[in-house]
Every structure is written in structure tokens, then in C-alpha cells.
């Protein structure tokens, strides 16, 4: 484990992750298509992973728990995408739309 001089403050990584997360929030709130909402969720998951890896690299390099967490985040994200796309496909087949504002079977 050799130290590497980067001269990039930890805050810059955290700020990048905050910007990506806000973009993801905006996408989730505005997009109508369920697949596009899923893409915005991926952005938010990536922002969280950047946070984890940055903290692992700067704050506790001897344990690197954050990197392990990022590996698990990627794994769970893969499972989540597969399952969510199956659900979207099912909704599209039953209701003929993938727009979340048109799937209003639960209200009358």
C-alpha cells in the first residue's frame, strides 16, 4: 500500500457526488417514463458510490470498507435493474404504457 499524492481535496469528490445526486433527484421527480426514472436512480447510486470510495481512500485507507460497500452497491444495482425492468415490462404488457403517471389503477 503506497501513498499517492493527488492534491485533490476530499471536498471536491463530495461536491461532485452531491451534484450527481441532485441531478438524479431532479430526473426521478420530472421524468414520466419508468425506464428514465430508473436511469436517474442509477445516477443517484453512482453518486453514493463516489462518496463511499472517496471516504475509503481518504479517511480509512487501512480498512477500505467503503470500496467493499461500492462493490455491493454495484451488485445490488444490477439485481435492482433486472427486477425493475421485468416489472416495467409487465406493466407495459398489461396497461399498454410505461409512463408512471398513466399507471393509476389504484385510484378512482
Amino acid at each position: 500500500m503506497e501513498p499517492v499524492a493527488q492534491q485533490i481535496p476530499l471536498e471536491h469528490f463530495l461536491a461532485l457526488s452531491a451534484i450527481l445526486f441532485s441531478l438524479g433527484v431532479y430526473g426521478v421527480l420530472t421524468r414520466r417514463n419508468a425506464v428514465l426514472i430508473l436511469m436517474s436512480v442509477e445516477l443517484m447510486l453512482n453518486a453514493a458510490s463516489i462518496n463511499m470510495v472517496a471516504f475509503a481512500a481518504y479517511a480509512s485507507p487501512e480498512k477500505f470498507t467503503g470500496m467493499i460497500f461500492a462493490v455491493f452497491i454495484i451488485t445490488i444495482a444490477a439485481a435492482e435493474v433486472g427486477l425493475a425492468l421485468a416489472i416495467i415490462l409487465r406493466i407495459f404488457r398489461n396497461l399498454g404504457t410505461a409512463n408512471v403517471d398513466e399507471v393509476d389503477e389504484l385510484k378512482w
Partner: protein
Amino acid sequence: MTVAQVIFYVVAALAVAGGLGVVLAKHAVYAALFLIVALIAVAGVYILLASEFLALVQILIYAGAVTVLLLFALMLTRTSDLPEAMTGAQWPVAGLVAALLGGAIIATVTTSDWPGDEDGMITRVPFDDLGSALFQQWAVPFEIASLVLFVALVGAIVLAREDEPEEEGE
């Protein structure tokens, strides 16, 4: 400015531009392509954080598999919407909420005191250390993750299958 700083700002700008494309693109397929840009830029951020393994996994699984899956979903659900109908009417409120959230997080980040940020020194974690930690210290979560993947895969197949077992029985 050192080389690492220049690369960081280029990669960060690419990630933010890709993210903007994902949430603002008029076409769903363009949004997916912008997502690939953002994910590869995030892989570059991982390399700057000296975790090459995560960068490789990011490109293989996210930029490769997940985006292909998303593109397939777009193809199968055939979004024939007009491009201007891709976003709801609530976008001003959503923009305000997202800007407030991002501003609050950035304000907190810049005013807080973080450990180990004086000289920007980070420690590179070798592949074999990461692997032995994953398979020894984190073995139980690793096995649970494989179970989650298995259940998700079976669930996806069951959900997405055409349901006509009655005709097959006769």
C-alpha cells in the same frame, strides 16, 4: 495544477454533463447514451481515487451490462411519446427541490472539517488485499449478495414471462 487535478476536473465535467443529458435529453435513447458517458466518467473518478478494480467493475457491469438492459427495456416498451412529453409539468418545483438539496449538501461539505484532506494524500489498495477482504472478512455479505442476485434473476424471469401455461398443457 497537477496532472491529477486537470484529469479530475475534466472527468467531473464529463460526469456532470452526462448526468444533465440523462435528466434533460428529449429522446429516451439519447438519455441512455448520456448515461453511458456519465458512468464511464465515474469510472475515471474511481481511478483517480486509486481503486482500479472498482473502475473495471463499473465499466463492465454498469456501462456494459446495465445500459444494454436499459436500452432493451426502451426498445420493448416502445416509447412513442412526443419528445416534449418526456417530462412532467412539475419540473419547476422539481428543479427547485433538487437545487436546494444539492446546495444544502455542498454547503455542508465545504463547511465541514474532513479527516486527511490537508495534502490530498491517498493510499492505493492492491487488488489482492481487496480480494482477500471480500472473501474473508466480508464472506457472509458476499454470499447474501449472490442469493439476492439469484432471487432477483428468478423473479425477473417469472415476471417477464408470457403467461400461457394452459395452452401448453393440452
